[in-house]
């Protein structure tokens, strides 16, 4: 990674030209894979992320089955070539195992798991290219993939990070801001009820900054939510037209 820039915010604008409360360019596509039961592709800045859903399907081995509910499993994985520095060794890292866990906990609240006792629903997130904010973009993609796959859901889950950079609260940190900023707080939200299903943070927030950051995250998630719904509508109307 290159040298730390002297300032990350110049004249109220971020180094990539964004306002503090602005998302990076966002593209969401639903239904991009043939074999998966549901799938989605998300680009957010330089992030390129695929998500796929399989299930509800039979859960092996049987002794892991839950008698009154389906089990949701999530796997967040980075392709070896997805990072700008050294090739990432294949296989799970401690970081990816933790992300897989919080991703699952971010998605569980919206799925009607009780409709499929004993079954399993698998969510796979592949980071093809990483550019800060992969876990939140992955959750955003996974939730579209689940909807694309017809998994019964209460709501979508929209997810984005907020943080503090040069003392300013900003939305959707890029790689430099993530690396050199003072705080990073990934959040996932159920947009309709404004409930939080993922919240992590590291860095340093005063109480006021913390509250300001949450508010900005809510605005960000609402923008993400809109793009998620557009992607799903586009897919459905294409299907209606095409088939």
């Amino acid at each position, binding site marked *: *990674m290159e040298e730390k820039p002297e300032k990350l915010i110049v004249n109220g604008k971020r180094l990539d030209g964004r306002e503090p409360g602005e998302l990076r360019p966002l593209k969401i596509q639903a239904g991009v894979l043939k074999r998966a039961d549901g799938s989605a592709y998300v680009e957010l800045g330089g992030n390129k992320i695929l998500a796929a859903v399989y299930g509800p399907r039979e859960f092996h081995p049987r002794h892991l089955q839950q008698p009154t509910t389906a089990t949701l499993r999530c796997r967040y994985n980075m392709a070896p070539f997805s990072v700008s520095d050294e090739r990432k060794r294949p296989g799970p890292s*401690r*970081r990816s*195992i*933790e992300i*897989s*866990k*919080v991703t*699952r*906990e971010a998605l*569980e*609240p919206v799925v009607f798991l009780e409709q499929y006792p004993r079954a399993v629903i698998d969510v796979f997130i592949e980071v093809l290219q990483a550019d800060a904010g992969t876990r939140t973009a992955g959750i955003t993609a996974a939730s579209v993939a689940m909807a694309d796959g017809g998994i019964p859901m209460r709501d979508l889950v929209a997810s984005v990070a907020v943080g503090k950079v040069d003392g300013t609260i900003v939305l959707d940190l890029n790689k430099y801001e993530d690396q050199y900023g003072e705080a990073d*707080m990934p959040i996932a939200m*159920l947009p309709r*009820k*404004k*409930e*939080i*299903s*993922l*919240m*992590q*943070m*590291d*860095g*340093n*927030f*005063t*109480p006021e900054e*913390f509250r300001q950051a*949450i508010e900005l995250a809510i605005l960000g998630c609402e923008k993400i939510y809109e793009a998620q719904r557009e992607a799903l509508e586009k897919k459905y109307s294409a299907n209606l037209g095409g088939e």
Partner: protein
Amino acid sequence: MQEIVSSVKRNYIADLARQRKRVDGRGLDQYREISVEPGLIENADGSALAKIGNTQVLVGVKLQKGEPYPDTPESGVLIVNAELVPLASPTFEPGPPDENAIELARVVDRGIRESQAIELEKLVITPGEEVWIVFVDIHVLDQDGNLIDTSALAAISALWNTKPPKDEDWKLKKFPISKNPVTVTTAKINGEMMVDPCLDEESVMEARISMATTEDGNICAIQKGGSGTLTLQDIDKAYELAVTKADELRKYVK
């Protein structure tokens, strides 16, 4: 950490929560009994046994020489590891750390790292070549709930207990620790927020949120857990509890 809970127990604890009561008679903002015993392991460079209620966590610190990370050549290295050994709970299995052990280690790590409790830049021997590695090993001995707070408390206590190693490359008078971050976990049960969940409460809670704060009331790390959600009010409440209870926990450090 998942335990199958009978619906009887679930209803009982949820009903209590609705009345703002708890299984062991505590108030919603009350911790179980806390104790910290530093220095138990003479073979370690620092150690502490922390107990919160029946939960027991032993943390040992070892200082060893090694290479710095390529992207921080002028900084020592902090490595936090957690072992949920099967001695501590019927649900822990032998084997490499599972997602619960990894999350525990990483949450404790962030509380220490982000508060800049250890002055890592003082732990350099030869920049870019050799630095001190601070191994913080969390060894859970008895799991009766709230491993995060107990482990964080044992870890920061063990670090404050850490003595300079007998090695000619060590040039400092003492181990360079200067801050005192503590972590407070609040669980949500039937909509009520309560600190320091015991195991029975963890087995029925909707979600938990752990916040590490420093002496100035700033937040340095957060981790939400569990498969439910939190409202903005829940988060406000958790922050309020985190700051007030942190002062109480901080007294046990050292």
